[in-house]
């Protein structure tokens, strides 16, 4: 019989996509896992996101982020297969290649320069991106409007049904015996003799290791285990049409047709942490650009709009860290919980199960980068 003082091998804090993917990966490694979550009213990016598995805009300013993203994109098909085998659910992962549409020559030039910068960074990986002019583009996207002058394309870009992914991960972790504990907001974490004691609103949870995967709340939690997670949450809005016959077979960075036929439009950025508000002007701007990109959407009905708070680290790049003062405590934090889900499940979770991050893969993502000047 195990000592009562250590109920779980790992306590994962945060039941969103990052936490659920990490918990699933840990359970696959044979760990006994508790997944601590807030309640139904938690601010939850996993229910509001845009569901891209996106490569082409990631990593300008930090080449390893681009490589890390490509790794996850490449692992995604296998990840989706594993989930389907375990749960019977298809998360509808597709990687037909994606576009970033440009509505003026200036936008196209800015885009081309951005990709050039990405490509020319030391240590850059090849994301096989190209810049297409209108003539080339219209062959692949026949419904673009006259304002579209061109686009960038990467064959590594794809998308998924993210609500189904969320449900599938929770089904998969339940089947693997992960203990899901909703309404267990973590108030304090202490480490005593190798055991972490997590004080929650519903009593104490004990575990040998702790993985903080609580999105923007990592900012509050990380200092409890001697780590930092500097965040800058922002609000994004999404506008969704009724279900339409398939007309768009590639996702774009701001507009995609889902497997179920709805068209999602998004990509707004507001400095707000109020998830319950919608700014009409922002929705209007989203739709205006969408109609210039695909004028045939003019007759489509809009059936839903929502806003959600993005998980965003201060520089936009992920944070993977392990604590020196509290050995066995980890932070797993990023903006792209969908894109990086395959990495969190198949690469990061096994590291946590082994008890140490693999520096050759994730050293560039330590939050120490925020304090480079202070530490010389």
């Amino acid at each position, binding site marked *: 019989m195990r000592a009562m003082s250590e109920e779980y091998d790992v306590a994962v804090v945060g039941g969103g996509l990052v936490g659920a993917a990490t918990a699933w990966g840990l359970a696959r490694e044979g760990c006994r896992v508790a997944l601590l979550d807030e309640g139904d009213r938690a601010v939850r990016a996993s229910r509001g996101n845009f569901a891209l598995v996106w490569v082409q805009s990631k990593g300008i300013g930090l080449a390893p982020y681009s490589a890390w993203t490509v790794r996850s994109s490449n692992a995604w098909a296998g990840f989706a297969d594993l989930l389907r085998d375990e749960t019977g659910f298809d998360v509808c992962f597709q990687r037909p290649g994606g576009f970033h549409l440009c509505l003026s020559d200036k936008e196209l030039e800015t885009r081309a320069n951005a990709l050039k910068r990405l490509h020319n960074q030391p240590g850059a990986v090849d994301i096989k991106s190209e810049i297409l002019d209108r003539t080339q583009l219209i062959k692949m996207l026949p*419904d673009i409007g006259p304002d579209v002058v061109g686009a960038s394309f990467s064959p590594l870009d794809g998308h998924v049904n993210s609500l189904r992914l969320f449900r599938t991960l929770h089904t998969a972790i339940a089947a693997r015996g992960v203990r899901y504990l909703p309404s267990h907001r973590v108030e304090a974490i202490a480490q005593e003799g190798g055991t972490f004691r997590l004080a929650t609103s519903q009593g104490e949870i004990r575990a040998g290791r702790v993985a903080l995967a609580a999105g923007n709340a990592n900012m509050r939690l990380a200092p409890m285990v001697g780590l930092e997670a500097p965040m800058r949450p922002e609000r994004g809005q999404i506008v969704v049409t*009724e*279900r*339409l*016959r398939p*007309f768009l077979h590639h996702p774009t960075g701001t507009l995609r047709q889902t497997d*179920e*036929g709805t*068209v999602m439009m998004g990509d707004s950025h507001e400095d707000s942490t109020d998830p319950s508000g919608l700014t009409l002007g922002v929705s209007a701007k989203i739709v205006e650009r969408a109609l210039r990109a*695909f*004028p*045939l*959407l*003019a*007759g*489509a*009905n809009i059936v839903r709009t929502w806003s959600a708070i993005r998980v965003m680290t201060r520089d936009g790049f992920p944070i993977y860290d392990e604590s020196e003062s509290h050995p066995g405590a980890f932070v797993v934090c990023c903006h792209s919980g969908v894109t990086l889900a395959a990495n969190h499940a198949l690469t990061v979770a096994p590291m946590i199960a082994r008890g140490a991050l693999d520096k050759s893969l994730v050293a560039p993502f330590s939050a120490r980068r925020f304090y480079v000047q202070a530490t010389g």
Partner: protein
Amino acid sequence: MFKRLADSGKSVALTVDGRPVDCRAGDTVAAALLAAGVDRCRTTPVSGAPRGPYCLMGVCFDCLVTIDGVGSRQACLVPVREGMAVETQSGRREAGR
């Protein structure tokens, strides 16, 4: 299935899928459809199951039709108008029409 009351109002002409249908001022499009014997006005976007006006008060969304080119309108909430063109819908609508 449905019978009109004797003193219903003045005659209004509209078309359903191009076919002329006679109805009465004050009818909703859903009432006009039902009176004309059209009890299937759309099929669902996912399973293709047939649907017809049901609640007649704007809550079930089963009565969606295209009216004068605007898709997925609730037929039970729109009063008929002379010359109105109503189209039944089949599954997901096509973008651009």
